[in-house]
């Protein structure tokens, strides 16, 4: 056995070396930085080790705002996007004509550039001295007051952010769920039909369990993706997210590294590790829940 193993390691060496240099080492470094107080990347010096960085980050109002924003984003967009994607997939699965056309249309946002989409959203939502934006036009049409979605109240900005995120993540979910639904064998539905199963019961007792692994996959990746949200917010609110009050955890990490107030890799590392802890916890909770409800 021992003799044969070195060959296996040899073949794995390129991958291990690559992952080691570009993943394991930086990850370990982040962990180290997060405990080094006052680390300066130019001079490579620090003046102590401890939990001060964590304490600073956790007491930073900008960070707390970012955590709040991220959590709201996650809690709203993951269920909403998965739910709507499921409805659309069910619809797509039950039509024959024009199905391919609709599939293409629903998939378009996936291949569209984030910043381009952000620009379109600006046109839809932004209030300028010349126009109130398309959405406000509609609101006025129905007799409502114009709302500034980009620079206005927190809830309006949060609405745009969630709307945008849902819209951007949906195509992939539709793609996955449509193929998952198509892979459920017709026999199960025929068997249920002969036994007089109601539509709702077919959905809850047959369709959902059958595609549960895919739904679970989408929820986990959806959570992780939403926790890592950043570029979408930049596309909507510009780079100074703290000023807009719409920063996310990843945005905070970025600001701490490179932003105008940046140059603090230690704080950034601590924030990144806190994010990691949050994502890890949520994923473990997801796995525990799934054990009961997901059928492979």
């Amino acid at each position, binding site marked *: 056995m021992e003799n044969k193993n070195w060959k296996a390691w040899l073949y794995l060496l390129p991958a291990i070396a690559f992952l080691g240099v570009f993943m394991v080492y930086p990850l370990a470094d982040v962990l180290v930085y997060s405990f080094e107080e006052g680390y300066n990347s130019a001079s490579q010096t620090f003046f102590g080790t401890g939990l001060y960085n964590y304490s600073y980050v956790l007491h930073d109002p900008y960070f707390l705002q970012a955590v709040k924003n991220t959590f709201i984003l996650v809690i709203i967009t993951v269920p909403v996007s998965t739910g709507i994607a499921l409805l659309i997939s069910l619809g797509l699965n039950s039509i024959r004509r024009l199905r391919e056309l609709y599939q293409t249309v629903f998939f378009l946002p996936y291949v569209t550039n984030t910043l381009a989409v952000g620009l379109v959203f600006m046109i839809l939502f932004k209030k300028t001295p010349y126009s109130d934006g398309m959405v406000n036009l509609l609101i006025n049409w129905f007799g409502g007051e114009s709302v500034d979605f980009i620079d206005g109240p927190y809830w309006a900005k949060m609405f745009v952010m969630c709307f945008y995120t849902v819209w951007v993540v949906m195509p992939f979910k539709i793609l996955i769920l449509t193929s998952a639904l198509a892979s459920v064998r017709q026999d199960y539905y025929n*068997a249920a039909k002969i036994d*007089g*199963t109601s539509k709702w*019961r077919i959905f809850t007792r047959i369709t959902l369990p059958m595609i549960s692994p895919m739904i679970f996959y989408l929820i986990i990746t959806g959570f992780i993706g939403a926790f890592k949200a950043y570029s979408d917010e930049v596309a909507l609110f510009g780079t100074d997210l703290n000023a807009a009050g719409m920063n996310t955890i990843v945005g905070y990490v970025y600001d701490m590294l490179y932003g105008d107030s940046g140059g603090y890799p230690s704080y950034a590392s601590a924030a990144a590790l806190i994010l990691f802890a949050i994502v890890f916890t949520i994923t473990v909770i997801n796995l525990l829940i799934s054990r009961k409800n997901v059928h492979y």
Partner: protein
Amino acid sequence: MKVVLDHLTKKFPSRNKKGDTVTAVSDFCFEVPDGSLIGLLGPSGCGKSTALNLICGLEKPTSGRIFFGDDDVTNLPPENRGVGLVFQNYALYPHLTVRQNILFPLQNLKGKDRLSKAEMLKKADEAAKLVQIEQLMDRKPSEMSGGQQQRVAIARALVKLPRVLLLDEPLSNLDARLRLQTREEIRRIQRDTGITTIFVTHDQEEAMSISDLIVVMKAGVVQQIGRPQEVYDDPANLFVAKFLGTPPINVFEGRVAGGKLFLGEDEVLRVAGVDDQPVWAGVRPEGFIPQEAGPLCCSLAGVEVMGRDTSVVSSHPAAENVSIRSIITAEHRIDKDAETVRFALKPNKVFLFRRDSEERIPFEAV
């Protein structure tokens, strides 16, 4: 429950988009006697599964009617027909246990038909007992063999006491040994419950062995209906004769002239009441009697002794296939090294068919 199929026809739109149709089942008339076991038999694509789907209601007939007893069920949806269907690949819900699978049809019942929980469990247990899977009730389908899954599928179809039980290729996913065992089992379950049962198969042996009546289909058209032995002994046409029997019937290009049947140059049989014409002559493998001076002269290719019987492989210039396979009883000795073997034919094992229509030509052996 008697099942009556009255001029049942099903046409599907053709794939070539010209508005053509493909007739899957054509003018199917049949009265299934109450409590019988029927085998729908035919090669792939002959419309037997479509016929089954019409009976259970998954497909709507293009024309014709279906009656269960005196009820016209033609336009009833499947759930109101009271049928149980066992799918070829069982279609057991993989995420449910055996018990949950069997309970599933009962849990669908609503209103006054709805049973209490205890009654449901009792019925599920009864169904499980009938197919002898009581000890497997808490397993998932993936933890069982094909034969066991098959039984669960039957139990699930039987649990709501259907008026008619339908089985689609019930044995084709089982290995050879299990197949023998399971077909006996299906026969037993059918006898025990007395439920009118129709099953589809492409395996003639399977259909012959357990059916009360077999229906032979080809290209959507029923070829013959009858007791298995009757159909075997008295095939309506060349297709039926070829389809039934292992080893298959041996077909010769023959001709009838002056009341005599010629296979090639050999005058093999006197047949009265047949006009002079070219014919297909079918001879069952057991219809050959080795005789020193027998009229049919074949070149011997091999002799396979199988204990009880001997299988003789030979060839003849008029035969449709390269080799003729005949089964003779072990008391006839065949010299393995001989060049030729001569046979006399048993008249009741010889069938004549028209060259053109392949319909059977009756004759009297003289």
